[in-house]
């Protein structure tokens, strides 16, 4: 069997927000640029391109990742959820929808640039720690930069969703 050779472009096939997608991509294109520029899913934002601000967070095979620190080619064969499909996705969809409602009610967003990533990041916390404390919420969100809100309304919103969902459990 011939060993694989390095290439500069590849075909990738993946699922994005439940849709099958196939594209031919330069290997150097990162995942967030692929989502935004190639697929037109501009809800995921670019804030730093060095993995610190969190604005590019998407769900990759069920786990949140920094899309600026992944290559599009690495998404071949994977399942990606971005904000555009997050509220209706299997698994965390309901949590994201609940968060959107609470964020709206509490004005837990102002300019909105950090918001898609905040929602996806918070949803992952609620999914694994539905009884998260305020401190745990703050710690979990500490990788997502927001310059507008000062974070409290976001923490309040996440906490409120936890409480409501706990209240809703039998």
């Amino acid at each position, binding site marked *: 069997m011939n*060993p694989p050779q390095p290439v500069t472009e590849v075909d990738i096939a993946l699922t994005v927000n439940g849709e099958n997608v196939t594209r031919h991509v330069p290997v150097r294109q990162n995942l967030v640029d692929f989502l935004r520029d190639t697929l037109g899913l501009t809800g995921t934002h670019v804030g730093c391109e*060095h993995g610190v601000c969190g604005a590019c967070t998407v769900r990759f095979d069920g786990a949140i990742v920094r899309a600026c620190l992944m*290559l599009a080619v690495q998404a071949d064969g994977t399942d990606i959820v971005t904000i555009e499909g997050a509220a209706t996705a299997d698994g965390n969809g309901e949590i994201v929808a609940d968060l959107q409602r609470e964020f709206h009610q509490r004005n837990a967003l102002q300019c909105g640039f950090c918001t898609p990533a905040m929602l996806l990041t918070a949803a992952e916390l609620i999914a694994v720690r539905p009884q998260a404390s305020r401190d745990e919420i703050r710690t979990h969100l500490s990788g997502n930069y927001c310059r507008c809100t000062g974070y409290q309304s976001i923490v309040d919103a996440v906490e409120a969703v936890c409480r409501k969902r706990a209240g809703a459990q039998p």
Partner: protein
Amino acid sequence: MKAPSFSYVRPESIAQAIDLINQYGDEARWLAGGQSLLAALNMRLAAPSVLIDLNSLPELGGISVHGDKLIIGAMTRHAEIECSPLVAQHAPLLSLAMPHVAHAAIRNRGTIGGSIAFADPAAEVPACCVALDAVFVVAGRGGERRVRARDFFLGLYDTALQAGEMLLAAEFSGVRPGERVAFRELARRHGDYAIAGLAARATVNGNALRDVDLAFFAVDTKPVLATHAVAILQQGTVTPERVQLAQQALAQDLAPQDDVHYSSAMRMQLARVLLARAVSDLLQAAGVQESR
């Protein structure tokens, strides 16, 4: 900040991966978690010709116990280590350290092998490996060899990995009777690189500490075992005076440099504080403390 041009290849076996790294040598970089490499590429601080993607080699993953050894494959994600019951049982120091490694999204991709091979002086994982006297399994054209973590980290981003080699796994020899661990780091914000950090283990018998390993990180170009401080701590029992002597002895173990962010005096002060607090952690019943 867009990465420069490079080509990409995804080996289907470890043998292929080693062939590729030998073929391309200095021109190639491993793509493991990518959490450090892609940032460097985006900032054009690195310009490799070839990226060799290790993410499709399942033989590099996994956490398992063989006899008395805990074996963690090089491509195991930090997130998996963070919530592994095997790790909690056999290498609890790693479990304590994981929440301090960046943030959840980074831990979902970053790997133990990547952290070891990159050898950032402020990284948590190398220090834990040094404290635990871990052994790294390395593979090259000539086969496998084992390197002690304590011999592996040579300097700033500099390790004992030779050209044409890759990391396969890290082996931990398990918890000894009466052993406790402590992990503390000081950072300005949660998830930031540490200003100073300490991965510690010891056998605790009442107020006495034996077989103490104190691996400081972020205070030098690599993790440093504070042997002089340890020698003092292991005498008699732990008293405030003994801790003070051990803190003073750190001056013989650590020589941090001034840099744009912190003076060496600052890092030394924090190292002294970490020592005292980690010792206190070790002596506590549960041995687990918050790191601030």
